[in-house]
């Protein structure tokens, strides 16, 4: 058969990963549940900013002196441990100057967002606009519930 004569080219790691589960996003393929100070933490699939967990807060709590935004982006993330999708609310913490954590704490999750011209579905937003102070400090990811 003709196909048997074809050379067996090794797949690049990225291609091999996608072949393993093409339904998953790049983020989902690398997501982990152990380290909430890393951008790969499963709840950060659409986190866009510096992680509050690197700034004296938690994955869903603001550092002392900062206030959570009353409005936020809402998305869904896949938990790799149970394979279920969860509704996540990305609230900014506001009222203090931007946290100066290291580069590894600056995340640019983009799962399920659309370009800026579809602004209600884009997460490149400072959600502090509803706060007394619109100064952005850091970003959190609060688990709301099961998505399906």
């Amino acid at each position, binding site marked *: 058969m003709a196909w048997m004569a074809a050379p067996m080219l090794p797949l690049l790691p990225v291609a091999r990963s996608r072949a393993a589960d093409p339904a998953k996003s790049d983020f989902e393929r690398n997501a982990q*549940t152990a380290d909430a100070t890393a951008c790969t933490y499963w709840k950060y699939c659409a986190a*866009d*900013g*510096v992680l509050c967990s690197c700034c004296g807060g938690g994955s*869903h709590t603001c550092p002392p002196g900062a206030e959570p*935004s*009353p*409005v*936020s*982006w*809402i*998305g*869904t993330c896949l*938990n790799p*441990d*149970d394979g*279920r999708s*969860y*509704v996540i*609310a990305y*609230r*900014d913490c506001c009222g203090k100057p*931007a946290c100066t954590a290291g580069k590894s704490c600056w995340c*640019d999750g983009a799962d399920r967002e*659309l370009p*800026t011209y579809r*602004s*209600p*579905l884009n*997460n*490149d*937003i*400072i*959600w502090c*606009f*509803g706060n007394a102070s619109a100064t*952005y400090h850091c*970003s959190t990811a*609060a*688990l*709301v*519930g*099961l*998505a*399906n």
Partner: protein
Amino acid sequence: MMLSMTVTLGTVCGLLIAVGSNATAGNDPSFRPAQRDYILACAGCHGIDGLSNSRLIPRLKDRIGYFVNFPEGRAYLARLPNVAFSTMSDQQLAAVLNYAVAEIGGNSTPAGMKPYQAAEVGKWRKLPLTASLSAYRQGIVETLISRYRAPASLRGYGDDAYETDR
């Protein structure tokens, strides 16, 4: 980047979280499809329970139901920009509107409210309210106050200091 943009009010839907943000995987609430779609598409601004930051965003809880009292108000909800331009299908959108009106609307929703149908929503979303939205809303609200016993506070977005200060 998060820091690279600012927001023009009225163009972006965000949310007031009203449920347990400390929930952990394995013990979490689940949602019916229309409720989930509402949360994902609307609750960012309007709140999971319809309680928003009403300085900026209309409160839905115990208020949204007034709008379905007459045809123009009913159409208004489906013609709102972020409703009309939603990526949801007409059927999904009708279910979300029915969820918001019937369940979040509380006592504001008239008894025997006729549920939105997909075809109706499909018709109205082709006529999005993209100009003079505030003035148009005010006209709707005045009708609701004068004819349908809606509270005067509906002229604002909610019951907070911002509203009473104006």
